């Protein structure tokens, strides 16, 4: 090393430098580490209930006032937007729940999740076109993406456990390659599905004059899948293993569970949900290259807001983001992204780990 290296004696001068530093020795009480975080959090939560109430009032009062204004102005528009928001939220929930499960268990930020969505949609479209059955298309989308996710886990991620950044970089590389391969195979056209006749058309609802039946079905399906996921996680043996893995992987492995199997199953379920959402979302809207980025952004924001690793958090986050996006598009079209962004900023500012997030 050269003579001007970094001798040990330089450290005092380092200490001196900081106008940026806090005075040394002051206890900050903000260790965000695993062991101390939980205990401090509970302590703070009991101390800050009044402040939290104030925050709730600050954020919900303007929303309530604006909604009352919007209802008096044009009630059908408001309720239609509300239902549209719920539909979008259910799509986002389907995509994001897989993302959050995979992260919670494997600490793997799968940035190829949007590609899995698009892949499921394309395969579903292909099957639907050839068999004429929409239900088969949904199943094909689920299983195609689940298989792809399984392969990714078995061939790549299994071999680089604990290397968070490297895994994420690999998923970025995979998403680029997959996006280009799909563009190659299916071209840049926009594809649409025809939903089966029994959910085609529109239903008349109170408050909203007419609403597409299909979107209501999407909403119900998302609720059903959410409940199913809850049942899987809370009531079955594999779900118990997944939850145990989220909390402490090492302990789960030590108690004799084949962790690799649990990982593979979770990855397949998460990827399959993305593929299923691809077909369902492709029917509600459309599929084209670029949708992968859109749904990746949506699931990122949803899990950042809701809390990584929590399916309930994904539901709450999806609800917030879906409603914000639809209301933004209806009432302030050029700034609708800003609403999504503001929600994320506020969530990060007050709850850095998300609404339902736990200390990692």
């Amino acid at each position, binding site marked *: *090393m*050269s*003579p*001007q290296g*970094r001798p040990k004696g*330089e450290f005092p*001068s*380092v*200490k001196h*430098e*900081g106008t*940026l*530093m*806090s*005075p040394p*020795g002051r206890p*900050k009480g903000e*260790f*965000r*580490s695993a062991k101390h975080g939980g205990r401090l959090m509970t302590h703070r939560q009991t101390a800050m209930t009044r402040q939290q109430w104030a925050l709730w009032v600050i954020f919900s009062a303007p929303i309530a006032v604006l909604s009352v204004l919007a209802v008096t102005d044009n009630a059908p528009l408001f309720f239609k937007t509300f239902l549209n928001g719920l539909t979008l939220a259910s799509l986002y929930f389907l995509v994001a729940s897989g993302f959050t499960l995979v992260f919670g268990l494997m*600490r793997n*930020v799968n*940035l190829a999740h949007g590609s899995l969505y698009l892949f499921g949609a394309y395969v579903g479209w292909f099957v639907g076109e050839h068999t004429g059955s929409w239900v088969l298309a949904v199943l094909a989308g689920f299983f195609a993406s689940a298989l792809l996710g399984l392969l990714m886990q078995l061939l790549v991620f299994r071999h680089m456990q604990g290397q*968070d*950044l*490297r895994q*994420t*970089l*690999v998923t*970025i*590389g*995979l998403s*680029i*390659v997959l*996006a*280009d*391969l799909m*563009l*190659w195979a299916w071209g840049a056209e926009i594809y649409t599905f025809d939903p089966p006749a029994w959910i085609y058309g529109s239903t008349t609802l109170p408050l909203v004059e007419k609403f597409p039946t299909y979107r209501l079905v999407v909403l119900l399906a998302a609720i059903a899948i959410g409940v199913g996921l809850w049942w899987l996680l809370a009531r079955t043996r594999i779900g118990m293993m997944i939850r145990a893995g989220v909390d402490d992987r090492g302990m789960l492995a030590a108690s004799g569970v084949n962790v690799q199997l649990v990982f593979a199953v979770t990855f397949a379920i998460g990827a399959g949900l993305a593929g299923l959402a691809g077909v369902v979302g492709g029917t509600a809207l459309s599929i084209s290259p670029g949708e992968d*980025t859109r749904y990746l*952004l949506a699931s*990122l*924001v949803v*899990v*950042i807001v809701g809390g990584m690793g929590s399916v309930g958090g994904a539901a709450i986050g999806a609800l917030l983001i879906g409603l914000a996006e639809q209301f933004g598009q209806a009432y302030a*079209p*050029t*700034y*609708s*992204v*800003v609403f*999504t*962004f503001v929600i*994320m*900023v506020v969530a*990060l*500012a007050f709850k*850095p*780990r998300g609404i339902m997030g736990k200390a*990692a």
Partner: protein
Amino acid sequence: MSAAKWRRAMNSSNAAALAPSRASAHALPSTLRSTVNDSAADTATRHWMSSAWNALSLRHLAVIAVIAIALLYPVLATPFFTFQIGAQSLALGLIALSLTFLGGYGGMVSLAQMTVAGLAGYLFAIFGSSSMPAISLGWPWWLALVFALTLATAFAAAVGWLSVRTEGIYTIMITLAIGVAFFYLAQQNYTLFNGFQGFSKVTAPSVAGIDFREPLPFYYLVLVCASGGYFFVKHLVRAPFGAALQGIRDNPRRMQALGYNVTAHRVGGYAVAGLLAAVGGVLMVWYNGRISPGTVGTGAMINILIIAVLGGMKHPIGAFVGAIVFVLLQNFAIDLVDRERFNLVIGGVFLAIVLFSPDGLLGLWAKLRSRFGPGTPTFKTKRRLQ
């Protein structure tokens, strides 16, 4: 080690110079002046030069060669190569350098560096002049430049403040979300960002009779900025601030226990990286002459990451190595494969690098040297703190 060689070379030349001219040399403080004055100076200089030549290691040669090539490149190359390849890869390299600094030395891999760069470009177009006089304010270029750089740096610091609230792998998600959100905002918004079209006719100024729109002056401008950024980063990582940042990268809790304000240092790192990216962004706008949402799209954001990872994030030069390889691939891969399949090529290269050589091309080079070379460890492996 190399410094010791240098000193030995200097000593031997001292002795050589002193031997023939002992009488006069005693009075003179420096050998150099004695060689100038003395009649035997000619042979002494030649001797000094040869011994200095022997003392030069391969690395010095490489550095000198790089500097010479960088300076003489426009003379040797066609204007296309000067402008399209040279200037573009240096400007991209500067943006990637900001990511290398942030990721390699701060441990925070931010995908929003292209967003900061793009914001600087947008701000320059908004404050300065462009094809949209309804939006552009038409300020003089230097004022627009100052405002663009300042605001973009402030934006970078704000992004940093947001993303350092959580740590580790969350950073990449939050910065990606911010970047994509900015892309959609720029695409949707017509009052400020002029939507899908963006701004065109955003040109480099001409100062003191030099028109920086011409390939040659523009190349040297970018070269000055890029090398300025490079040496700035090299200096900063040895300064107290940079040392503290690396300490925080390796063990934030210990640094906090030592009394460092971890958050402030991280946000400071984001601000510094933001300034570098902003300079690169303005250069990119001058290079393209226009800016549109595509400049800050997901693809562009990820390209910056690809460049930084491709070159290797452990040394600042990696950003420029990666940028040159990337731009060359971008321009010439289409001769080998279909034009449409460029993403496949670059994605495949990126995957291969991440899977097989996580330290990028520099890491690959170091591995090859340690396996086949004379056994001298390369410069960057030594400096790592771990």
